[in-house]
């Protein structure tokens, strides 16, 4: 009730001001009249009675003012007055206003845009209920930091662990749909019971798989994505329980996942996080539970409430030790790795995003320094105004408040335009984001971004407004009123402050420039490094043969027929078929090789990635032969086994020897026929585009492959646009088997390009911010030097009158500016040395303290500074001595 009264009163005071003032006047008049009456009653003559009463009443205006103060609305009224005043001031100096507001708008907009990305990618929880408890579980060793599990190990962990509420496995299992329109292969996963339960999701219709579905022979059921259900089955609600043909076998549809279902991302035959998966089928446990050598099941698990990832990891390690006693050879050397899912998905993007946030933050600081500088220069001009207001009785706090109102208004204007820039910027950023960037679709300008923008606007307004405001009230009234704002002592303090701001912004710009330079060098290095293959004019695609219609021997036969028919197509210079394409995440590892005549170091195994390749695979990929020979049509099942290895493996296992002719086997007790002879060594293909590492690799001829060759990639090298080969490929496949789907048809260029798009994205933005920073710093230098020149017009005039020529004056001004810039650059170099460590993880073959980059950045900074000084310096020399002297 009381609060309501108070609110009503204040509202009335604010909105009905005239009425309130009128009331007060009536009240005072009543009081005065009473006093007069009393005076009359005591016998004073009327005129005297009135005078005495007025005397007693005191200053009416003062009472009125005090009453108004008591009504506590003066803050708001003053604010309103200050705002109107500030608006008038800004409107009176449009040039000043536009420069300062646009500077801030750019900086604030850039910050809001980058913050939107950070908010969407790093801050917002994953689209799973209680996502903080979802973790990924890997095996871990020095050679394989993140390794999938063996299914039977998985089953034991699932049964024995006490840390997880649910524990599920998944592994890549694409499915080919035929019988409904054109054959198409869908990205799919084979999942154990409770996979979606672990993620906190459930089917929109139907059910997810249970342990009964995991039994070998039961696996012919499928869950469809909402997208697939709508696109291929017209959202038919009666599809549940119906049978569709996948991989040439009947599968019963048991459920439809809701539209927002997101794949958690995975490592082995990896598919990125997001709405990237269309079919899920049950994972079935097959084979002998005591043979646990093969690892291909990835694990996702939900922690029980209150259990941490590291506690779970400790328990998993204990379970590994326990299982290692039961299966001595299988778990040797493995440790468990439990990582929060969010970390797994966005962790790799974090360093880049934080660097971007840092870079854009520096830009904001520079913009603040610039704004402060502009305000300071104007504060000097306005010294007289401030002095007059102070002389008329404005308190210091009142003056500071008024100056801050102005700077906050400027910041608010900047922020409003900044938001518009941010909205456009976010759209541009999302478009620029690499295709595999996690969570790009959650990036929006939302309430959090608006709040962030308001907060930085407030912070910047205070940051750039406070120093000028405090400076402004340090005026000496007498001085300022007398000399009209020129050459008084308080100017020196302002100049020192301005110089300090200038040095600061030059150093920040220099840091950004160095950062951009380092990223540029790193990127050039990336482009320059030989990936080990030639991606241009190369068309790639994936094919998989259903087990239902192809026996393993038929598969080998199919590939050799496809190979032959592709070779006969005009325009194809080389056609290759192999299990892998570089940089696509499709690779398999094998450990425990036996090398004839060699023993591995203690606690290590000889290991290599294994692949199949057709005779022309290397030629098509553009992978060079280093020694020996490629495969040829003679490498069939009827002759002794042969293999090709990469250079990395040759130098690692046969240092100083010729590996060609040496023999390898997978068997612990090999018969003569088990030995494979190395016939060729090929060049290294880098594992990832942004790392120089290359793992050991080896290839079998498809005909001699010891593993089933159901899935293969096709690589066609043409002489021009690879898209021209798509129809030839389709036709060749159709003639062999019209039910086969051709998946992932894309030029190798795209794959290679996608792999460097993240560093390119980072480089682009950091360069953009560096250019922005340098421009702002140049404006800052220009402003400070111009101001100082205008202040010293008199001095220059005098000097020139006394015989200094214009060159002397030019040098003097340049020296002043360059000295400040050099100080800033020195500080910037030192700062970059310290901050460079942050960039380290983003750099490729460039040291964070790369001398060339530092030197170049310093040179550019000096050049820009010199240019920014030169323009005002020129103006100084143009001063006519007589006019300068008179201008006093």
């Amino acid at each position: 009730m009381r609060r309501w009264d108070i609110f009503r009163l204040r509202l009335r005071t604010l909105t009905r001001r005239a009425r309130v003032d009128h009331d007060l006047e009536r009240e005072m008049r009543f009081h005065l009249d009473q006093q007069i009456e009393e005076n009359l009653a005591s016998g004073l003559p009327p005129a005297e009675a009135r005078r005495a009463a007025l005397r007693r009443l005191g200053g009416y205006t003062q009472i009125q003012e005090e009453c108004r103060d008591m009504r506590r609305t003066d803050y708001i009224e003053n604010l309103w007055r200050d705002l109107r005043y500030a608006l008038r001031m800004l409107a009176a100096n449009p040039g000043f206003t536009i420069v300062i507001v646009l500077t801030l708008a750019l900086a604030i907009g850039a910050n809001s845009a980058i913050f939107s990305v950070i908010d969407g990618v790093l801050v917002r929880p994953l689209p799973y209920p209680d996502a903080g408890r979802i973790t990924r579980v890997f095996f871990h060793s020095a050679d394989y930091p993140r390794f999938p599990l063996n299914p039977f190990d998985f089953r034991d962990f699932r049964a024995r662990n006490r840390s997880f509420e649910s524990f599920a496995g998944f592994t890549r299992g694409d499915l080919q749909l035929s019988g409904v329109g054109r054959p198409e292969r869908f990205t799919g996963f084979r999942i154990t019971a409770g996979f979606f339960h672990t993620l906190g999701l459930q089917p929109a219709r139907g059910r997810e798989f249970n342990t009964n579905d995991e039994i070998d022979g039961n696996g012919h059921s499928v869950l469809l994505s909402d997208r697939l259900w709508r696109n291929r089955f017209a959202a038919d609600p009666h599809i549940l329980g119906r049978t569709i043909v996948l991989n040439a076998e009947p599968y019963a549809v048991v459920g439809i996942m809701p539209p927002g279902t997101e794949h958690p991302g995975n490592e082995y035959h990896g598919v990125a996080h997001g709405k990237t998966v269309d079919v899920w089928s049950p994972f079935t446990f097959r084979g002998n539970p005591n043979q646990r050598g093969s690892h291909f099941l990835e694990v996702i698990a939900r922690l029980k409430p209150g259990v941490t990832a590291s506690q779970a990891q400790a328990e998993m390690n204990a379970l590994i030790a326990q299982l290692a006693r039961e299966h001595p050879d299988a778990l040797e050397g493995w440790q468990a790795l439990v990582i929060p899912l969010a970390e797994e998905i966005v962790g790799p993007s974090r360093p880049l995003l934080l660097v971007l946030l840092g870079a854009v933050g520096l830009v904001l600081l520079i913009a603040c320094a610039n704004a402060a500088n502009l305000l300071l220069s104007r504060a000097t001009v306005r010294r007289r105004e401030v002095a007059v207001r102070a002389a008329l009785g404005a308190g210091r706090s009142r003056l500071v408040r008024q100056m801050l109102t102005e700077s906050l208004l400027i910041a608010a204007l900047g922020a409003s335009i900044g938001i518009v820039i941010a909205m456009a910027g976010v759209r541009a950023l999302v478009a620029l984001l690499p295709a595999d960037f996690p969570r790009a679709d959650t990036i929006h300008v939302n309430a959090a971004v608006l709040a962030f923008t308001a907060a930085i606007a407030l912070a910047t307004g205070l940051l750039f407004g406070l120093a000028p405001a405090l400076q402004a009230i340090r005026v000496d009234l007498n001085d300022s009123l007398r000399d009209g704002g020129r050459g008084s002592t308080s100017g020196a303090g302002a100049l020192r402050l301005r110089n300090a701001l200038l040095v600061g912004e030059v150093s920040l710009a220099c840091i950004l420039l160095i950062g951009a330079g380092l990223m540029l060098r790193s990127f050039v290095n990336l482009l320059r490094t030989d990936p080990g293959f030639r991606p241009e004019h190369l068309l790639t695609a994936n094919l998989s043969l259903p087990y239902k219609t192809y026996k393993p021997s038929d598969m080998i036969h199919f590939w050799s027929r496809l190979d032959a028919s592709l070779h006969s197509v005009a325009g194809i210079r080389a056609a290759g078929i192999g299990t892998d394409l570089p940089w696509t995440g499709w690779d398999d590892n094998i450990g425990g090789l036996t090398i004839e005549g060699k023993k591995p170091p203690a606690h290590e195994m000889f290991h290599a990635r294994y692949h199949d390749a057709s005779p022309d695979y290397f030629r098509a990929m553009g992978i060079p032969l280093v020694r020996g020979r490629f495969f040829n049509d003679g490498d069939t099942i009827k002759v002794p086994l042969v293999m090709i290895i990469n250079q990395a493996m040759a130098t690692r296992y046969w240092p100083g020897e010729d590996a060609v002719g040496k023999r390898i086997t997978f068997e612990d007790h090999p018969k003569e026929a088990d030995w494979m002879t190395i016939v060729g060594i090929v060049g290294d293909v880098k594992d990832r585009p942004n790392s120089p590492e290359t793992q050991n690799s080896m290839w079998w001829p498809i005909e001699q492959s010891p593993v089933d060759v159901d899935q293969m990639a096709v690589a066609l090298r043409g002489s021009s646009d690879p898209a021209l080969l798509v129809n030839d490929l389709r036709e060749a496949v159709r003639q062999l088997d019209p039910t086969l789907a051709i998946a992932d048809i894309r030029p190798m260029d795209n794959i290679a390009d996608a792999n460097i798009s993240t560093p390119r994205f980072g480089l682009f933005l950091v360069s953009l911010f560096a250019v922005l920073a340098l421009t702002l710093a140049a404006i800052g230098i220009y402003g400070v030097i111009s101001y100082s020149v205008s202040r010293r017009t008199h001095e220059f005039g005098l000097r020139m009158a006394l015989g200094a020529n214009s060159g002397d004056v030019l040098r003097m001004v340049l020296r002043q500016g360059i000295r400040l810039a050099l100080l800033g650059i020195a500080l910037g170099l030192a700062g970059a040395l310290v901050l460079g460590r942050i960039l380290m993880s983003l750099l490729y073959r460039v040291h964070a303290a790369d001398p060339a980059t530092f030197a170049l950045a310093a040179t550019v900074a000096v050049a820009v500074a010199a240019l920014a000084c030169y323009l005002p310096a020129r103006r100084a020399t143009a001063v006519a001595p007589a006019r300068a002297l008179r201008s006093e």
Partner: protein
Amino acid sequence: MGKPSDLIQGTLDLLILRTISYQPKHGWAIAKRIEQASEEALQITQGALYPALHRLEQQGWIRASWRKTETGREAKFYELTRAGRAQLQKELAQWQRLSNAVGMVIGMAEE
């Protein structure tokens, strides 16, 4: 500036609240009543009285309304609100404590 420097800070509020606690009064009457009751010892200037009234009103302790005086003129009358009555009790108690305490200290000094 007409602030009652001879009155302990906040005492004027107490005096006003007390003065209008029996019946609503206008500013002139409040000042007169305080002067009379204190046998002219306390002189309340308008410069102190009206800002205080406005502050008390602003805090919700008192409420103002325009009414006719006995002589038929319009004047702004102030009366206590419920919250104001509670506030008066609180301030009275506080004043008692304070004056007791001051009295004790003065009494001690005499010994």
